[in-house]
């Protein structure tokens, strides 16, 4: 009887192990997709995928984190196309998932703070003139929090570099300064080891992309 129980327990262990493997597998698969998504629709589909995983794995913060990240990327794609009006709704969604992620991961997670920063930046773009002082300030606060928690985080360095890169020279930004900062981010990426295979590890390609731009374009 004792043995029976044991084998039962064993079977159970293997089952959970199996489930764990499933989680890793599907997460790895979906995370890999981030790089291939191009359109807002692609990112929405991905966000839905992560949401689905998150609703099953309700104790894990990463699905919610990636769902939020997918929304933010969707928003950034739309921002580039000049579709500012819908950014509020997208930021709402991102922030909903970010609070879920934060509940699970704790308040001192630099990656979540960084996504919050990105989400507030999206909100600001809806009406920069009026929102600079509110959403802009919140974005800056979140950026500071992220940087304080994890000074070596390459994504923090990346987003900071982007901010400088896209700010016109007359306003204190510059492409050259931005590029210097991308180099710094790249160095941090090279030194960075995510805690697990599934932990946030995006952004290196972006830094590489900016650094690979031909010199005249970077002016």
């Amino acid at each position, binding site marked *: 009887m004792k043995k029976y129980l044991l084998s039962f327990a064993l079977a159970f262990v293997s089952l959970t192990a199996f489930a764990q493997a499933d989680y890793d597998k599907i997460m790895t698969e979906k995370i890999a997709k981030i790089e291939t998504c191009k359109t807002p629709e692609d990112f929405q589909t991905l966000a*839905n995928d992560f949401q689905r995983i998150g609703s099953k794995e309700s104790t894990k913060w990463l699905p919610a984190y990636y769902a939020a990240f997918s929304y933010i990327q969707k928003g950034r794609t739309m921002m580039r196309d000049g579709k500012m009006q819908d950014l509020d709704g997208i930021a709402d969604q991102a922030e909903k998932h970010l609070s879920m992620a934060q509940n699970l991961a704790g308040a001192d997670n630099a990656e979540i703070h960084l996504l919050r920063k990105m989400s507030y930046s999206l909100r600001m773009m809806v009406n920069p*003139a009026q929102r600079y002082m509110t959403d802009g300030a919140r974005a800056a606060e979140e950026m500071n929090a992220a940087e304080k928690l994890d000074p070596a985080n390459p994504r923090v360095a990346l987003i900071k570099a982007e901010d400088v890169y896209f700010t016109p020279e007359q*306003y204190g930004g510059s492409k050259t300064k931005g590029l210097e900062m991308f180099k710094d981010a790249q160095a941090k990426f090279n030194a960075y080891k995510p805690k697990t295979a599934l932990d946030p590890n995006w952004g290196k390609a972006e830094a590489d992309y900016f650094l690979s731009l031909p010199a005249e374009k970077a002016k």
Partner: protein
Amino acid sequence: MKTQGQNLLFLLFLLTSVMGYSQVKISGKVSFKNKGVAEVNVTLKDTYDGTTTDAQGNFTFETSEKGTHIITFTHPKYENIERSVSIENQDVSLNVDLKEQISEIDAVVVSAGSIEASDKKRATALLTPIDIYTTAGADGQISSALTYLPGVQKVGGTEGLFIRGGTGTESKIFMDGSLINNYFSNSVPGIAGRDQFNTSLFKGNIFSSGGYSALYGQALSGALMLESVDLPDETSYNFGISPIFLNAGFQKLGDHKNYSYGATAGYSLLSLMQKVFKFNTDFVEAPQGFNGDLNFRFKTKSGGFFKYYGMFNSNKMGVRSESLEPGYDFSLVKLNGKNTFHNLSFRQKFGKYLLNVGGSYSYNRSDLHFSTETNDIESSRSQLLTDGNYLNFKAVLERKINRISAVRGGIELNNTDENLNFEAVQKHYKDLISSAFVETDLGFSNALSAKIGVRAEHSSFLGKNNIAPRFAIAYRLAKDWTTSFAYGLFYQNPESKYINGPANLGFQKSQHYIFQVQRASEGRTLRFEAFYKKYDQLIKTFNVTPDKEQNQQIQTALNNDGYGFAKGLEFFWRDNKKTFENIDYWISYSYLDSKRDFLNYPVSLQPGFAAQHTLSAVAKRFIPEWKLGVNLSYTYAKGRPYYDIASTFDNGKAINYTRNEGRLKDYNALNFSINYLPNIGKKDAKSFPVFVLSVSNILGSKNVYGYNFSADGSRSSAIVPPVNTFVFIGAFISFGVDKTDDAINNNL
């Protein structure tokens, strides 16, 4: 045996799991009102299986799960749906219909007659404070900037918002819900008073050219609701300097961002500019003024928010003009004006309820001295002294019903106490207007919403009551297209300045019908509005023989037999940096057909303040390389009629008749301004100066606002702006607040 048993178990387990791998296809279509919905998240609950619908709303996915499961359909804009499915070996097909989730973001807003300029309306917001500052020709004044919007007439010699054939006093201005009794500074006849309130004091505004909410009253034409800023973002100091004024101020923000206080003071004097420019107006005493304001704001521990704003303004000027009366060379008028306004408001949320309470007090004194000058000798002066005390109290309680529906109601009290002294005449006018109102916002769906309200008023002076129902509905025709309709009744007491003798008077009345079609998309707004306005019970007056020293008519109310109408079409187009890089421009055109028989008009006439066609265009461009903003504006208004009306008495009955009439020449003005921000982008800069150069009426058009006539009507003189072309230069410097990013983001 033991191992065998284990093997068996393992085999069994393997078998089930292999069997489990036989896939079943689940597919279907998700729709809303027979149209497929894209981006719906379809999930087999508690599994990784699921998918997202395509552009046509179709979905398909495979699963190895068996048995009874729940499939969920989620999309932020629709209500979540759950469906139970039994998965056996056959493919499953299911179609679902979604229900719309009503939300504040997507709900259609009633916009007939009103233009909102606050962040609430997001990218389509119109005329924010920065917009006003960068509109050439607006002089940074809210009321002037509004004349570049459809429906507002450019009138000139008189202050006030002349909306859709209404007089300047038929529009009212509110601050945080409380009436501002003296929004404009005191002035002398023929020269418009200026806005006394600093534009940057307000974070947003709703400008209604008709059909406005039941929360507001006593305005036959329209209302401007200003919303003051909450806590400042940072502690800052600023000062401004120009040849005509000097001012300084500060705002201090508490360490925990729960309170702030601030003050400003300013002095202005026009005499220096008089030496440089050729003025049309002969200022024997150059306009000069002193003003100051004070504010504090704090949040209570329980989430309440108090705001106080108080201001004081005094101004002086003296004007000499050629006398129209025989025997005198010049007529002179001197003004000494004083004004103070205090507003305290409080708001707090209690669960589903929101309470807004506000009170304001204002005092205004206008001390005018009239005299004549003959052979350089000034006659004795006659004094016209008016002073008024105004108290306003308003309480509004609002309850949210669901996401987009709400009901609000409250009361308003307006007490007026005015004294007028002119020679032997002494007038004391007192009126308490008590009002109660209730209004409901009804959101039926994201595409259909309505606003229904009613307001009741009692005036102690008139001893009469009125009930004014108001109604508006909005419907979304397509994604960016909305249409709305508004109807309302509006009442207003006769102006006290016409009440100079016994008369049986009642409320003046207007009825508004407004129909609007609007297209609002990213950075672009297009709107058409058609309106019909019917006036009843307008007051009729006759002229009291004017004093020869002041060529202003005095009119006295007789009865409420006046009437009139105004109808028109308006067009507005704004393109905010969408078509042309860095260029924000808008064009507005108004057609107005109006006739009235009111005041001393002998018959129904096109009012002297109603231009038939008004066109204006505004363009702004920021050039980042030069740190320079360049702004242009142009206004055209078709010539308005003017009348010289006199009264005779026949058997003790006043009969008005027209002695002279004509048409003014068309109004034209091209204005230009530039803003230079040299420290933009200097991250280590401590001060943030903005240099402004503006030239109004750059082409020097000789505009005429109207005519004055002598007592016998035989001579006349044109009412013209104090100066045809005016150049303003100034520097505004702030410390403590980095305006850099502000400027960048404004101009990105």
